């Protein structure tokens, strides 16, 4: 009995064909399309600074044209927090009042009290 999840090797290659087909189609589409010469960036412009300005809605100060993303920036921050909370919530064992320490740190070890956890569920 291994103590960690094993990587299964029962690969399903038939399904994979679909991905290959998609690649062929995409490649064919891209290679037959023509986009013309790329515009590129000014030699001396600081792209990283531009990104920073864009995130703070200070796009007028950026050297390269960009839109403001302050709202999106804040929202993505919120989403990250929510995702973290969601992850923690999901990872918590139901009825486990001890918190999430075990779930996060046991490396996916077999849970010895798994059958008992059903009972706790009923009790709660």
């Amino acid at each position, binding site marked *: 009995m291994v103590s960690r999840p094993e990587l299964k090797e029962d690969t399903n290659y038939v*399904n994979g064909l*679909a*991905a290959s*087909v*998609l690649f062929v*189609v995409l490649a*064919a*589409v891209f290679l*037959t*399309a023509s986009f013309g010469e790329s515009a590129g960036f000014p030699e001396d412009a600081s792209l990283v600074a531009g990104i920073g300005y864009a995130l703070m809605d200070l796009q007028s100060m950026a050297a390269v044209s960009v839109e403001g993303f302050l709202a999106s920036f804040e929202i993505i921050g919120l989403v990250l927090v929510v995702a973290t909370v969601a992850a923690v919530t999901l990872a918590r064992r139901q009825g486990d009042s001890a918190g999430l320490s075990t779930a996060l740190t046991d490396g996916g070890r077999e849970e010895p009290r798994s059958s008992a956890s059903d009972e706790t569920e009923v009790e709660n």
Partner: protein
Amino acid sequence: MVGAFDYAPAIVLLPFLSFCLAVGVALSGRDLLPKGGALPGIAATAGSLLLSAWVFLTVSGGETYNETIYTWAAGGEATGSLSQPLELTFGLLLDPLSAMMLLIVSLVALLVHVFSLGYMNDEGETGLPRYYAGLGLFTASMLGFVVADNLLMAFMFFELVGLCSYLLIGFWFRQAGPPSAAKKAFLVTRFGDYFFLIGVVAVFATFGTAKFAGEGSFPRLAEAAIQGEATVNTFLGLAPTAWFTVVGLLVLGGVIGKSAQFPLHTWLPDAMEGPTPVSALIHAATMVAAGVYLVARMYGFYALSPTAMAVVALVGAFTALFAATMGLVKKEIKQVLAYSTISQYGYIMLGLGAGGYVAGTFHLLTHAFFKALLFLGAGSVIIAMHHNEDMWDMGGLKDRMPVTYYTFLAGSLALAGIVPFAGFWSKDEVLYEALVHGLGTTSGLGTALLVAYGMGLIAVLFTGFYTFRMVMLTFHGEPRTDTAREATEPGWNVKLPLVVLGILATTVGFVNMVPVKDLTGAEIDFLHKWLYGTEGAGWAETLGTSGYQYHHVLFADYGAGMAAANLPSYLVGLLSLALALFGAGSAYVLYGGADPDPYTDKLGVVKDVLYNNYYQDEYQVWLAEGVVLPLSKAADVFDQAVVDGVVNGVSSVSLFGGSRIKRIQDGIVTHYAAMLTLGLTALLVGFAIYGGWF
């Protein structure tokens, strides 16, 4: 000045009022009226009779009435080549023909109401309000039909009398027979009315009006159209004459159904399941007369078409002969009378078809009285026999019920056509008209009339025979059952109508003694003058419903194209009288003994055929039960299996398809992802090809 015509609507409304009263009583479920509603009915019909008499007198004075009194529905725009929009109206047409018919109907109705006191009330029947309601509604509808001034109104009341006939035949609805007979009566006449209705619709579509008489009436329009003086719509690419023939024959369908002519006569014998007074009123004197009355009413239209005239005459003559043969072998008294009714209406049709407008009308008049008399007489016998109608169970009633016997005898003599009783004069005139017009006319119509005359003449022989076979078996000889031995004559309310009708059956023929006129030159053809009016003046001119007008059209090139041979009427009369006497005499000889044998049994197969009415009922029942019902069952199976099967099939296919396709959603994430991938690929390829990316 308030005259008879102002009160004419009351002729119709009075019996209707009695109907409403009786219905109200029937609904209340209590015995509110004495005699179960008979008295209002008697009062109403007596009132109608008085008013009819007043109208009759007024019409005798040369006045007529032809007015619209109620517009039922009216269109807004003219159709086809017509100038006027359609108007569907109710109105009164009071001319000599309708005045005469009013008298007949209201008189017989009154007498039958009185008779019903004896036949229904005294016998302790239940449901009398219903009975008198039916009689009242019938009388009202019949009178409404008689005074109708247009074909649509006539059709409406024609149907209503059919309803009343249905209700009254089925009066004893708790038994199995009457409802079935009622159904058959309505259904068979409905089959005829189907053609009639097409005819009514066609008349409206053709002429834009269905008025019988006066300026712009459809017979006049038709006459003008044939002469090219008026434009009407014709259909199906037919010329006016041909189209009018078609329309006339369509209307004739209703006539054949209602007047029980071949091949739609089968309902009438069955209709004898109803109470006998009803048989007398509806199935002998009046409703059955509605058909032939209609032909007389629109005679100007029929007279335009030689084909229609020939069909009318041939149908009539064939029916007269055909029904008479069946009457020869019947056992039940009402059955004999029923077949004789069919036969006699055949004579009326023959008379009308042969160009004898007066003759046909005359026979209608006399027949109404003597046949009502015979039915009421039979009713009296049936009361005495405790509702046993088999003549072989009777016999010897002559002495037990003399009033019934003598009146019945008068009616029988009239029916057989023995001089000087009413039927002789009218039947003789019918045959005379058929013969002279048959001999005179050169076209195919002439031949048809001669054939018809031949059939009519043979039927005279049979009529005499079956009439006196009936009289002999019923009244003469020894009583063959205990009931017959103990029979007693019913009360005054039975005898009074019998006596009144007996007198009429004896004398009413005197109103039109054409042979006597021919012999003596005395101007005694009163009915003829009554129906002809004054040529080119008065109502004969304005209404166009006089004998002169009809005569003119019949003999015109554009009309039926008849011509008359020159024959003395008394010679023809003598011939038919001799035949009638021979028939009656042989019946007397065969059945006159004390205990007659059933001689007709000796006819063997012929008797079976006759007794079973030439299997006419069988084939009609077979048509209904052997063809139509299986057809409808097959249609039902088809409907359920195929039509509904397709519907349910669509549903099943959808359900089955869904149950299969849903299995794509198998719960394995990888498969979903693969499908997404394939879908995206397919979409891309699709766009690429459609958008020309490659």
